[in-house]
C-alpha cells in the first residue's frame, strides 16, 4: 500500500514536472500598457509572481493599436504558447476568431465572457468591491456628497458606478452621488487633464470624495483631489501610494490573482475553461488598507465596511449588477 502511494506520489510529481516544463504561458496587455498602475499592471504582477515562484518564463506583449490584436494572438498561438491570457474586454472579438483556429491552445480572457470550449472567461464582481469603497466614501464625506468618474462610457464602468452608489447610499439616504464619464472613445482612458477638470467640477458641486474607474485618466483625478484637499479612491491596483494620505482607499480587483491562477493551473495541468466570476467571497475584489491610508480610516468606518463585506459574502446584502439589466437600481 505504502509503495503504491509512494509510486503514485512520484508519478504525480513527475507528471507535474513534465507539465511545468511543457507550459509556455503568455500574457497580452491591453492598450493602457503594462505599467498603467492599474488594470494591466495587476496582470503583469500576477505573471511576475508566477515567474518568481515557478521559474517558468512567460511571454508578453503590449499592443500599440487595435489592429494588432488578432495578429499577436495568432502569432502566439501559432508559436505554441498556452495558456494565453488576455487582459481586457476589448480582446473578445479577436479571441472568438483565433480560439476556433487553435482548438488545442488554452486561452483566458479577463473582464469578458467568450463562450468557446478552450477559453476560460474571468470576470469580476466589481460592484461588490465598489460597494465597499462606497461605504467608506459615504462615511468619510463631510458634505454628504461623493462622486464617481468613469473612463469610457461603457456598461462595465457603469457596473463600478452602480456598486459605488449602492455603498454610499447604504450609509445614509441623504448621501448624494455625482457621476461623470471622461468620454466615449478609448482616449478617455488616457486624458488626465480632463479627469482633473471633471474632479474640480464635482468638488465645486459639493463632492469631497471622488472614486475613479478611469485608467490613466485617474492619475489626474487623484492629483486634483490631493490638490484640492479632498479624498480620492483608486481602482484596480492599490493606488494609495500615488498620493499618500490623500487616497482614502483603492478598490482592488485581483487581476494579478486571476493571471497567476490561470498560469499556475495550466502548469499543474488543471486549467479549467468556462466562466469564473470572482467576487468578495473568492477574494477577487476588495479594498486596500496600507500605511498610506491607515490614518484616514476611523474604527467606525472599518467596522462598517467589514460588516458590509461579511453581509455580501453571506448573501444578506445583494449588490446590484448593472450588466444584468443595464440599469442601476439605487
Amino acid at each position, binding site marked *: 500500500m505504502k509503495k503504491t502511494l509512494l509510486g503514485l506520489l512520484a508519478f504525480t510529481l513527475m507528471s507535474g514536472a513534465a507539465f511545468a516544463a511543457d507550459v509556455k504561458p503568455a500574457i497580452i496587455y491591453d492598450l493602457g500598457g503594462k505599467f498603467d*498602475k492599474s488594470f494591466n499592471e495587476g496582470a503583469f504582477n500576477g505573471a511576475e509572481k508566477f515567474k518568481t515562484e515557478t521559474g517558468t518564463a512567460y511571454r508578453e506583449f503590449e499592443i500599440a493599436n487595435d489592429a494588432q490584436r488578432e495578429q499577436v494572438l495568432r502569432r502566439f498561438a501559432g508559436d505554441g504558447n498556452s495558456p494565453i491570457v488576455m487582459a481586457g474586454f476589448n480582446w473578445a472579438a479577436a479571441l472568438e476568431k483565433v480560439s476556433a483556429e487553435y482548438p488545442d491552445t488554452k486561452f483566458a480572457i479577463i473582464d469578458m465572457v467568450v463562450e468557446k470550449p478552450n477559453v476560460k472567461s474571468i470576470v469580476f464582481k466589481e460592484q461588490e468591491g465598489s460597494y465597499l469603497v462606497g461605504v467608506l466614501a459615504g462615511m468619510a464625506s463631510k458634505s454628504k456628497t461623493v462622486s464617481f468618474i468613469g473612463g469610457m462610457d461603457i456598461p462595465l464602468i457603469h457596473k463600478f458606478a452602480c456598486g459605488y452608489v449602492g455603498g454610499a447610499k447604504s450609509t445614509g439616504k441623504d448621501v448624494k452621488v455625482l457621476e461623470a464619464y471622461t468620454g466615449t472613445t478609448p482616449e478617455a482612458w488616457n486624458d*488626465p487633464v480632463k479627469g*482633473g477638470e471633471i474632479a*474640480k467640477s464635482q468638488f465645486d458641486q459639493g463632492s469631497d470624495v471622488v472614486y475613479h474607474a478611469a485608467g490613466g485618466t485617474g492619475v489626474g483625478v487623484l492629483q486634483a483631489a490631493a490638490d484640492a484637499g479632498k479624498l480620492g479612491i483608486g481602482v484596480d491596483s492599490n493606488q494609495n501610494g500615488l498620493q499618500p494620505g490623500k487616497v482614502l482607499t483603492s478598490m482592488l480587483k485581483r487581476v494579478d490573482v486571476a493571471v497567476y491562477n490561470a498560469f499556475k493551473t495550466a502548469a499543474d495541468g488543471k486549467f479549467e475553461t468556462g466562466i469564473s466570476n470572482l467576487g468578495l467571497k473568492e477574494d477577487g475584489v476588495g479594498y486596500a488598507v496600507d500605511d498610506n491610508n491607515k490614518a484616514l480610516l476611523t474604527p467606525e468606518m472599518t467596522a462598517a465596511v467589514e460588516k458590509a463585506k461579511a453581509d455580501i459574502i453571506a448573501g444578506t446584502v445583494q449588490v446590484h449588477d448593472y450588466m444584468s439589466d443595464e440599469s442601476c437600481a439605487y
Partner: protein
Amino acid sequence: MDFFLSLVAILESTIRLSVPLLFAALAGLFTERAGVFDIGLEGKMLGAAFAAGAVAAVTGSVWLGLAAGILVSVALSLVHGYAAITQRGSQIVSGVAINFIVAGATVILGEAWFRQGGRTPALSGSARFQTIDLPFADALRGVPIIGPIYSELLSGHFLLTYLAFAMVPLTWWVLYRTRFGLRLRAVGENPGAVDTAGISVVWMRYRAVICCGILTGFAGAYLSLAMTAGFVKGMTAGKGYIALAALIFAKWRPVNVMFACLLFGFLDALSIRLQGNPLPLIGQVPVQFMQALPYLLTVILLAGFIGKAIPPKAGGVPYVKER
C-alpha cells in the same frame, strides 16, 4: 445666486481648459501667417509636455522643466522648418510625421528612463507650477458679485494662464505694429515681393517657426506642469487639432483666436458640468450628446455664421527663389 456661482465655476473651468488651446492656436498663427502650415502642433505640444515633465521630475525645478519643454518644441519646429522651408517638402507630411514620431518617442523614452509605462514620476512642490492669488483676493471674497468674479474667476490661476492671455495683445502688436510682423504677414501672402525687397524669405519663415515652437512649448509645459503633475502618454488628447480648428475658425486673427479658444473651452467645461445634471425644461441630456456638442457647434458655426475663412495666400507653398 446659486446659478451665478455655478456660472463662475464653469467660466473658471473654461479658462483652465482654454489655455493650452490658446497657446497652441497662437503658435499656429505665427507659422501659418508666415506661410508654413503646421499640422504638427499636437506632436510639438506632446513633446514639450514630456520634456517638461521629465526634466522637472529629475531636477525638481519647474523652470528647468519649462525651459526643456520649450527647447524640445523649438527643436521639433526646426525639423519641420528644415523639411518644409529648406527642403521644400510637403508641409502636411512633415507635420504628420512629427505627430507620429513624438507619440511613439515619448513613450519609449519615458519607459526607458522612468520605467513607469511612459509616464513621468508625479511632481510635487517646486517641481510644478503653483496657483497665484491676485492681491486682495481673500479680502474681496465676501463681496457679492464682484467677490466671486475676482477671487474665483480671475485669481488663483497659474502664471502660464495669465501669460497665455497676455500673449494675445502681444501677438496682435507684434503682427500688426512691428516691422517684423509686417514682413511675417507679407511672407505668407506674397513671398516674391518680400524677396524683391531684399529680405530673406527663408530666414523670415524660420523665425516664425521658432516663435511657434516657443508657444507650443508653453502649451505642453502647461499640461504636464500646471494642469496635472507629470506626463502621461498621449496626454494632449487631440488639443493640437482643436487649436488648429480654432485658428481657422478665427480666420487667423489673434483676438478672434482668443474668443474661439474660449468658446471651445467653454463648451468643454459645460459638457463636463452638465453630465448627470438635468437641464431645466429639457431634462436629462445624454452624455454622448453633450460631448459631441463642441464639434457640432463648430460645424454649424463654420458652415453658416462666420463666413468664409480665407487662409494666407502663400500658405502651404514652399518658396522657390528662381524657376
